[in-house]
């Protein structure tokens, strides 16, 4: 592969990525973007503009139709099943509806971040390495849920569930975190707390983050880099400070909503 191993290489490079679920109806059109090594990249844009598809093409939960995703020098789009699984282990993911396994405990959910490393027999018998268990307890402490380790995930509130979701992703010791609308199911106060948690965990562990978010003020507050999408295309790519009302008008259309 042609990718160089120089230290300044970006964490993630998306090149000319397109996705059509149905032939002739592209959801992503020729999307290219670069994610720096410790950046927080917020992808903003209206609903149904392909943000979720973009983020799922990165770890191939959705198969891209064409284009490339270069993660740490590896072209993810060309990987076989086994290599893909090994790459996914290095990419954590946080979901809009938390996607916890409801009937499992908080601890089991957090440890499921290590499932890429544990054989099915050991996973079934809950025989995780001691280091993983210690790390899980420590993470639960960090996200403020140490007392809930043995509660079932479906007994938690939305904000608590998303904390577990973040802990699960960080548990992978990822080199990239993807977050798909992590705050859209939460109230405004909890949304800010969740973003603060996500960003602080990412920064202390030097994990770059790509976060889909349709809340522009939240994006401005937490991101170091903003990508604006509309109609499956990128129409803004730059610093939060440079994001002007004109850009927002182009991304979301109309202007009545801009106060």
């Amino acid at each position: 592969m042609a990718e160089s191993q120089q230290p300044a290489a970006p964490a993630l490079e998306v090149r000319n990525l397109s996705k059509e679920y149905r032939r002739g109806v592209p959801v992503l059109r020729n999307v290219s973007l670069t994610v720096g090594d410790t950046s927080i990249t917020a992808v903003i844009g209206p609903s149904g503009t392909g943000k979720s598809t973009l983020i799922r093409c990165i770890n191939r939960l959705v198969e891209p139709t064409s284009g490339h995703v270069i993660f740490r020098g590896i072209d993810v789009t060309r990987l076989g099943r086994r290599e893909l699984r090994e790459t996914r282990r290095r990419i954590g993911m946080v979901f809009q509806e938390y996607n916890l396994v409801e009937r499992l405990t908080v601890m089991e959910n957090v440890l499921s971040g290590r499932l890429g490393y544990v054989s099915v027999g050991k996973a079934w018998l809950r025989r995780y390495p001691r280091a993983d268990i210690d790390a899980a307890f420590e993470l639960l402490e960090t996200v403020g849920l140490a007392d809930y380790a043995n509660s079932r995930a479906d007994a938690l509130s939305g904000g608590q569930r998303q904390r577990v979701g973040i802990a699960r992703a960080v548990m992978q010791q990822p080199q990239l975190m993807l977050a798909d609308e992590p705050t859209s199911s939460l109230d405004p106060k909890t949304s800010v707390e969740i973003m603060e948690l996500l960003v602080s965990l990412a920064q202390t562990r030097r994990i770059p983050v790509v976060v889909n978010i349709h809340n522009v003020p939240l994006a401005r507050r937490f991101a170091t880099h903003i990508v604006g999408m509309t109609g499956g295309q990128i129409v803004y790519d730059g610093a939060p400070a440079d994001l002007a009302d004109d850009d927002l008008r182009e991304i979301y259309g109309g202007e009545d909503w801009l106060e």
Partner: protein
Amino acid sequence: MSPVATTHARSVAFRANWPARLAWLGLAAYVIYATSILDVTWERFQVGLEQGARFISRMFPPDVAPDKLRLMMRGLYESLEIAIIASALGIALSLPIGLLAARNLMPAWVSWPVRLFIALCRSFHQVIVAIIFVKAVGFGALAGILALTVGSIGFVAKLFAEAIEEISLKQVEAIRSTGASFLNVVAYGVLPQVLTRFVGFATYQVDSNLRNSTMVGIVGAGGIGGTMFAAFQKFDYDYLLTILLAIIAMIMLSEILQNAVKRLFR
């Protein structure tokens, strides 16, 4: 009529569903026709009631002679063994078979043949399957075990596959995104979502197998059924009553046990 009313005169809130009405009518007509063909008459029912009363009066008091009881217990134990072995086998096999039949996890070239196999297991009543196995492996409990195992797969695997097809794929997606292997995705993303339902199907099947295991003996496939059938044929109706009461007691016990198991798994 006022002008306002005329504009709405043609809008009917509840439209008549003629095809459905015709279907009901057709069903009623067929039931009447079939009754006439099968010589089902009120007189026959009345005569039958009298005979039934005589039959029941001959059942009392139940026969509790020690040797008869011993014979009965032997049959009952064998039925219990047939039911439990067949349930264990059938339920254990249903787990992988049901998984392979789930269309949301498996490609069509896997799920369709497996679904066909399950349909085959369901096609015949257990007594018919038992007759086939008696012919194949001879009289005795083995035939009963095999027959009930087949029936268990037909029921549990089918419902298990359907339960899997209704799970939330979001939880599965999250586990996949961690780089987990397929088996780990099944263990963490799929099974926790269907476990309680699987336990429900399984306990129901144990109950059903208990009842069926008392019946396969009639065709020589082992268990209390053979003893019961002999009692029928020898007009030992008082002994028959003893057996029937014992079966009722067994089923009630299993009901209590089932509830305990379900509570355990919630």
